[in-house]
């Protein structure tokens, strides 16, 4: 395995990256881009995806020596904040951050050859892990690997509708039964990569509430290649998921920031009873609450970024706490944005409702608030 901890990026490079991300959002990814992308497959902008690859953004989560552009939590945050702020639909979280970190962490030949395909935008990757949609994110895994082939079912795979390759968690027959102490008494998992075009892969595609594509999968003897060391799937997943959760917080923060901007502008412009509604102290105080939640979200994301160098439990505590807070913040900010806009805030025409739905997805995608709160408390 190569050294895959998130290394520190020099300040100038980070600023250049952050600036270019922001500029692209302002110039190229408006609400119209988002809306027109929702109308047709692949339910994201293929042009934007090519642009991201050309600008090297897809390597934002990768170490420099793996052809990556950066390897710093702050780069993930800048990228995902953009996604939230502009409602970007492209598989940034699924492919660039989550799959990218997993491939980098696995670090063997099978992983590294795919890493460059991912970073170049030539292939889309997605993680297929959850097996029961009703469960929390980290439910039991029953999928199994025998003699080069994979069997089982996976659900709610974000961008599974378009993914070329899946990274699949499964139990290897040889290690099933031997319970690993590092896996909390659960059977050890390994990670495999599977080509979704193989006939033994059955894919059911659908869309998420926020318009992005997803899929469920059935594997009936699909050829699979081991990624990383056998039986180490759980710790690899745990580490990559921390990076993805940091990205998810940033995505939420971007959406929160955009929503608060819209709500504040509306309070100043909408007139009722002969004056702007923002003159009402009751509404001022509610807007202040939303502002404070946004500031706190920025702060906990900063804390989670800085925790990259800390030992496992401390980093876990910071990231899980950041997620728990941003879920609270995103929920209230989106509810209040709709409420303070009034009827118009409930329409498909305005961006407000689209952010509302995006935040609903963010707040459940990698587990709900209860799950993150518990993990935060346990990591202490």
């Amino acid at each position: 395995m190569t050294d895959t901890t998130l290394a520190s990026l020099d300040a100038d490079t980070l600023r250049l990256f952050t600036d270019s991300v922001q500029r692209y959002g302002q110039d190229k990814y408006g609400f119209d881009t988002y809306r027109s992308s929702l109308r047709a497959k692949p339910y994201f902008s293929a042009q934007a995806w090519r642009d991201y690859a050309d600008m090297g953004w897809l390597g934002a989560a990768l170490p420099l020596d793996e052809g990556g552009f950066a390897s710093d939590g702050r780069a993930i945050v800048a990228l995902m904040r953009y996604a939230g702020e502009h409602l970007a639909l492209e598989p940034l979280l699924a492919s660039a951050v989550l799959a990218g970190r997993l491939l980098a962490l696995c670090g063997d030949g099978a992983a590294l050859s795919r890493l460059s395909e991912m970073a170049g935008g030539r292939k889309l990757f997605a993680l297929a892990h959850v097996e029961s949609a009703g469960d929390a994110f980290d439910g039991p895994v029953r999928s199994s690997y025998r003699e080069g082939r994979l069997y089982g079912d996976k659900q709610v795979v974000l961008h599974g509708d378009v993914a070329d390759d899946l990274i699949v968690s499964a139990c290897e027959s040889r290690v099933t039964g031997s319970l690993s102490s590092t896996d909390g008494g659960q059977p050890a998992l390994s990670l495999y990569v599977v080509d979704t075009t193989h006939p033994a892969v059955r894919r059911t595609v659908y869309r998420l509430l926020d318009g992005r594509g997803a899929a469920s999968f059935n594997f009936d003897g699909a050829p699979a290649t081991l990624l990383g060391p056998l039986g180490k799937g759980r710790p690899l997943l745990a580490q990559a998921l921390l990076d993805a959760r940091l990205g998810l917080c940033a995505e939420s923060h971007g959406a929160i920031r955009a929503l608060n901007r819209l709500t504040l502008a509306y309070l100043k412009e909408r007139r009722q009873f002969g004056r702007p509604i923002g003159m009402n102290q009751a509404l001022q105080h509610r807007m202040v609450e939303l502002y404070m939640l946004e500031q706190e979200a920025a702060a906990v994301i900063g804390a989670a970024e800085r925790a990259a160098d800390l030992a496992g439990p401390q980093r876990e505590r910071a990231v899980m706490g950041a997620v728990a807070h941003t879920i609270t913040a995103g929920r209230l900010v989106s509810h209040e944005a709709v409420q303070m806009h009034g009827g118009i805030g409930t329409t498909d025409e305005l961006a407000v409702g689209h952010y509302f739905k995006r935040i609903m997805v963010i707040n459940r995608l990698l587990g709900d608030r209860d799950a993150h709160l518990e993990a935060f408390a346990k990591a202490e």
Partner: protein
Amino acid sequence: MTDSSVRRAVDPQAFREEVRDFALTLPGDLRHKVMNNLKLEKADYVSYLKVLEARGWIVGHWPAAYGGCDWTPLQRFIFEEETSEAGAPWLIPFGVNYVGPILYTFGSQSQKDRFLPRIRSSEDWWAQGYSEPGAGSDLAGLRTRAVRDGDHYVVTGQKIWTTYVQWADWIFCLVRTRQEDRPQKGISFLLIDMKSPGITIRPIITMDMCHDVNEVFFDEVRVPVENLVGEEGGGWTYAKVLLSNERVLVAEVGRSTRQLRRLDKLAAETSRNGKPLRDYGPFARRLAELKLRHFVLQSTCYQAVAEAMAGNEPGAEASLMKIRGSELQQDIAEAMVDALGLAGIVYDAADLAEMGHTPAEGPFEAPGILKDHLHGRAATIYGGSNEIQRNIIAKLALGL
């Protein structure tokens, strides 16, 4: 208005049983749609109105002189509570609850003769034209104007959030007939035939991706003067009387009873971390809190009904019930989405149109649960936003 002294004494429990038995006879596919929040078409709503008509209850709360049953406030509350709980569709209120009582209270004899029978028989579908783009919470600021021209009014302006006007034969509107020092004084109540030339409907798609509400544009629409209700400039007063008739029902407590029961069932059938969700500490606690709030709301409703039965003038309690009722409805809906786990982020509005759809993920109820949550965000906005309701309590109850 009927004299309460001639009302027959009613045993509330017996009436409740009667309504409950009736609710069991509702068509199964209709209840199925309601229970699962599927899309209801005009024919579905009308079929319910027809069942009520056959039972003699379509306008139970109207005076007997106009074809009603002289229900007491308690009977009316029991009726709404029991039917909603049992999965009856939303009783489309525009005809039977809104314009009907205004017509028999303030309308002319010929208006009563012409419109009331057609409301009782569901021949006319009515819509309500109150809100405008610049006049929602500040309704008195409405600008749709009606200018007298011989024996017609010429109506020009725009209404918004008009529910199911795409199915309507008639719309009752608040329009401005005069500029006055107090904006409320120049408002009149007009009945407008939807077939009149100059009316355009533009659908509004809401974030649940459904089409329930619309914008309605009036471009020099000619309305016969005989369609003015009461006096010119009296519209605001009539609309206010109407709102006070609706007080106790705004809490929609029967609907919340039904939804809580479904949440209970969902929490029992869903597993979280290997055991039923209802046994998972944080969720069990949340469920208990929701049930407590439901109990409090129900108590408040019965208190208000008792006041109405005693003939006391309504105070600010309607606002309290609107606030608490809508908040409870939203929080139950959100808890149901959370109970779905990851299936709660999968949504296709097309599923709602199919009786036997199979959602991509999660239980059969999932699409309806998502729709109810998204649609329900408007519950704290429509019918007088909760901000306006709090202003009313501050003024009426507290003198602030």
